[in-house]
């Protein structure tokens, strides 16, 4: 088994074996991100493909500082956002509608257990815009200010979408079990 460093060096020289090693080692993790942002599986594959092309072709730009995995993750997230913007105009924009946007008290999940598949299913029910905001804030840990810049939306839009997405998910999860 090659080390990450060896793989990275190989990829910089565009060696096929190294590229394949990189794919085998990290494609699952990267696909995990794609699936979270995409609306369906084919879209997730599209995002993964775009991201991998960027990773392989621009691997020379990776400075070596900071985590290589973090660098790849960031590329995937950016690609997913670009993809979301690109497909936005072709899709019906769905509003969550008249949900109670009030914060339910934290802690109601103490006794509940969900599998990743169950969570993914609930997440997939979110309208695309809300899903992206929720992923960026809750899972990736970006700040609302950063999200607003990334998505080119108002910071308050990011906050309100996040809050609505959250209560939507909470409601769905409460009803799930």
């Amino acid at each position, binding site marked *: 088994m090659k080390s990450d460093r060896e793989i990275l060096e190989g990829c910089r020289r*565009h060696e*096929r074996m190294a*590229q*394949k090693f990189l*794919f085998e080692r990290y*494609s*699952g*993790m990267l*696909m*995990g991100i*794609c*699936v*979270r942002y995409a609306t369906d599986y*084919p879209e*997730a*594959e599209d995002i*993964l*493909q775009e991201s*991998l*092309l960027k990773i*392989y*072709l621009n691997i020379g730009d990776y400075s070596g500082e900071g985590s290589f995995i973090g660098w790849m993750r960031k590329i995937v997230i950016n690609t997913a956002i670009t993809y979301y913007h690109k497909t936005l105009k072709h899709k019906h924009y769905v509003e969550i509608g008249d949900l109670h946007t009030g914060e339910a008290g*934290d*802690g109601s*999940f*103490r*006794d*509940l*257990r*969900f*599998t*990743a*598949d169950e*969570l*993914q299913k609930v*997440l997939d029910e979110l309208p695309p815009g809300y899903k992206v905001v*929720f992923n960026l*804030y*809750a*899972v*990736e*840990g970006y700040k609302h200010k950063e999200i607003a810049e990334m998505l080119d939306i108002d910071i308050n839009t990011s906050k309100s979408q996040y809050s609505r997405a*959250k209560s939507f*998910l*909470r409601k769905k*999860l409460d009803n799930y079990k």
Partner: protein
Amino acid sequence: MSDKGTYNNIEDLFRSELGNRDYPVREGFWASFEKKLRFREFLRFRPGSFNVYYLGAIVAAALVSASLLLSGNKDIKPASVPDIIIEKDTASVQQEKSVVEEDKQVTDKGSTDKKAVGEKTLTPEKKYDGQDTEPAGGKTGEEHKPGKAVVAKGSTRVEVIDKKDTIEKIALPPPVARFTADKSEGCLPLTVSFENLSHNYDSCIWEFGDGGRSYEENPVWVFDSEGSYEVNLILFGKGGSGVKTVETVTVYPRPVARFEISQDNPYIPDEEIRFYNYSQNAVEWEWDFGDGNTGSDFEPAHFYEKPGSYTVSLKAMSKHGCADSMVLTNAFGNNTCYIKFPNAFVPNDGGPTGGYYSSRSDQQEEVFHPVCSGVTSYNLRIYTRRGILVFESDDIQIGWDGYYKGQKAEPGVYIWKVRGVYKNGEPFVKGGDVTLLPRH
């Protein structure tokens, strides 16, 4: 999966379960991806690896040397260039051969002008000029254009075949995409079964043209809105990716059959029932009036021989043969109760008849009687305008014959009043006037 425990908030829950989740990538993804990657790498300039810029340089060099060494000679076989070059080279050489033949055919027909132009296109550098925009070909560009017009007719087809042959020699057989659908057109909603008859592939994607996709081998798809859809079958295999084939499926709208009846009474003497047709998207109609008669008019009028409850149906068909039907069970059914009176009658001159009537016997309207359905009890009174009762009946089968105390009543206007109960329990009280007309 989630036996790691419980979480205090929703962010933690999603972050820990989904944040670092591995999601397996479809088998075959790498194979198809790798080809795209190679192609993109090929397009990028990188010192130290073979790419399009190097290819360009090699082609340019080959052109120059070819034009110097082989002017007029068609058997070019450079041995040292990479295989892609060979492929292109043989393709274009064979193409040139076909150009010669083509040109000869053209010239045989007459014009020597064309021959001159055609021969010019035989020199290799001009052929390359068409495929790669190299500066080397620039000088011949102007002369080249008129020649192209002559060549273009037959050469494209030949080129395709040549290239395919060459590729097959150096690579695995490419996927061959073919499928059949059990129907290519039909009425909404259209369920179509597709059968994949392709060869040499590992995985496939179906795109149904309505936004839907399937990864199944032989999918069944329901088209639920009208339109013409291009169904794509895309193949991925070791010998090539993205090979696709297209079939069109056309979904026709279904018509809507709707009609109403002019009145709820199936039998009023001498009166036809009109059927009002509110069907949409239809061009042909089949009526079944329920009494053994049928019709095909848009809005037919039908005369029922007998009162009764009939089941009327309408089948509407569109120009594509899609059909819809509407059935009105018991169209004049038992559940419709009514009572109606005429506003005039002409008593016979031959003396009192007793007022007994039937639908058939009273074609002359000699008896004043109601037309009704679903009446269980009944009382009819007829007064003069001064309020004198001239007739009373509790039997619905007995109407007023126009006689009062054995004498023919005076022509003029009489007042009638009826009360009773329908069989659904609903009581009714009605009144009106009727004109007694003298017989001429």
